[in-house]
């Protein structure tokens, strides 16, 4: 097994508050879709933030292609090939849609290539093309989510980490979104996503992780996670899922 990213026993929290993550671990394999589930406040978002450098890791370590990421700044980690779309979407509210997309390729040196990529992505999401000059902050919730997702596609990173990508999207778009993710995975981009729409998420994932109370409670092939009755009971909405 060749891991791309390994998280071993990390502890992290906000400021000098209590440890939210308390020994969480995770292994990410290249080219696969990984889905993290867990109740509200389990620490899922916190985990992603810790990986991408937004939070200080107190204990444990994060390795990417064998290299330690602890203590690097988010922009350094980004340049290594890890893209993160937080739950709050992280758009630039007063920039136009096009400028937001261009920011997605900020680290690219070739301006023409960047323009080409931006056009390409806009082709794929017609709503973005239509609203190219609208300010991102005035877009609807779902549109913003689409934009945030689309922005990750400007450069070709190794890992894309998505915090609840389906949030606020219409069912039709959700479906499209998962299809796109599958396609990205096929292109060799590894995907790590957090989903509350767990059924949907796990169904499209290769690997499932259950996180609660800041710890990894279960890790395994997605199908296995889906099938586990205890997990269903606790995290997937119980009886109805069955």
């Amino acid at each position, binding site marked *: 097994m060749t891991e791309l990213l390994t998280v071993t026993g990390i502890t992290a929290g906000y400021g000098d508050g209590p440890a939210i993550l308390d020994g969480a671990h995770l292994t990410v394999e290249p080219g696969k879709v990984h889905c993290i589930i867990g109740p509200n406040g389990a620490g899922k978002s916190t985990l992603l933030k810790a990986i991408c450098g937004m939070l200080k890791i107190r204990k444990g370590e994060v390795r990417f292609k064998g290299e330690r990421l602890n203590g690097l*700044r988010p*922009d350094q980690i*980004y340049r290594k090939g890890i893209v993160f779309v937080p739950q709050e979407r992280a758009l630039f509210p007063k920039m136009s849609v096009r400028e937001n997309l261009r920011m997605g390729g*900020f680290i690219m040196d070739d301006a023409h290539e960047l323009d080409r990529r931006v056009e390409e992505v806009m082709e794929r999401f017609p709503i973005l093309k239509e609203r190219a000059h609208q300010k991102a902050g005035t877009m609807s919730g779902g549109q913003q989510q689409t934009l945030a997702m689309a922005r990750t596609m400007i450069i070709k990173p190794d890992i894309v980490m998505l915090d609840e990508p389906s949030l606020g999207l219409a069912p039709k778009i959700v479906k499209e979104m998962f299809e796109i993710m599958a396609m990205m995975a096929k292109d060799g981009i590894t995907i790590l996503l957090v989903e509350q729409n767990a059924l949907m998420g796990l169904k499209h994932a290769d690997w499932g992780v259950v996180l609660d109370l800041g710890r990894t409670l279960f890790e395994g092939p997605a199908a296995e996670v889906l099938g586990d009755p205890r997990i269903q009971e606790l995290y997937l909405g119980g009886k109805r899922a069955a």
Partner: protein
Amino acid sequence: MAHTLQILILGLALGGVFALMGAGLSLVFGVMRIVNLAHPVMIIGGAYVAYWGFRLWGVDPLVTLPIAAVILAAVGVILYKVVFEKEAKAATYSEMTVLLTFAVAMIIEGALGTAFSNTQRVTSPDYATDAIFIGDIFIPTGQLYAGIVSLVIISGLALFLKYSRFGYAIRATTQNRDAASLLGVNVNLVSMVSFAIGVGLAGAAGALVSFVFSFFPAKHWEWIAILMSLVVLGGMGSILGTVVAAFLLSVIAAFVGAYVGATWSTMTFFLALFLILIVRPQGLFGDKPELA
């Protein structure tokens, strides 16, 4: 008629200087959400650089201008490192910095006062008290040069911000720090550099001020409210707005000064501010606030 034209010219001449004085302030606010109350005292710092250059070696303030800008920019870097870097992440950042910069203003004022005493200074290159006469109408050369130089600097800056990659990074950092850093922008560096540019502009403005107004360390209190009014009037953070406001208000103030009374001319700036708050709270070029 000639008289009216004369007053218009005097107003415009003063406006050019105010424009540069306000531009740095506007930039620092626009980019970093720092309301830099220390900006005026930094201008005075720049003026001292020009003053000593002139007094010790007789160097023309216009020549010292880039040096003043660089020296002040260096001060900006230090200040940023020591004072603002830590604050940059705080939620109440914008308000906090108002008070912090206030403190910085007092520190700089105190330091300048200790070093140079509170005596009024002014540099007097020949053009400072000269004027170009066209018939009865005159254009004060000091303010003319100052206005031209400041417009050149401001346009250069505006172009840089609009078209350079760094300009992009600056805007991104302003709007969403976290997001920018998640997209590969070294936000600390960006903040530092843009702060330094803003303070450097204060230095440049200081060199011009040194021969247009007289100055002493405590003088900056007189400027704070005027410059701030320009920034609010123009729309917080809009450099263009600040420049327009500077010219507009200086001209109005000149007319008020000539026809109503000198005491009331500064009032123009503040009354205009209140008027704009009533009719257009976001300022001339500002964005509309969320809740209409």
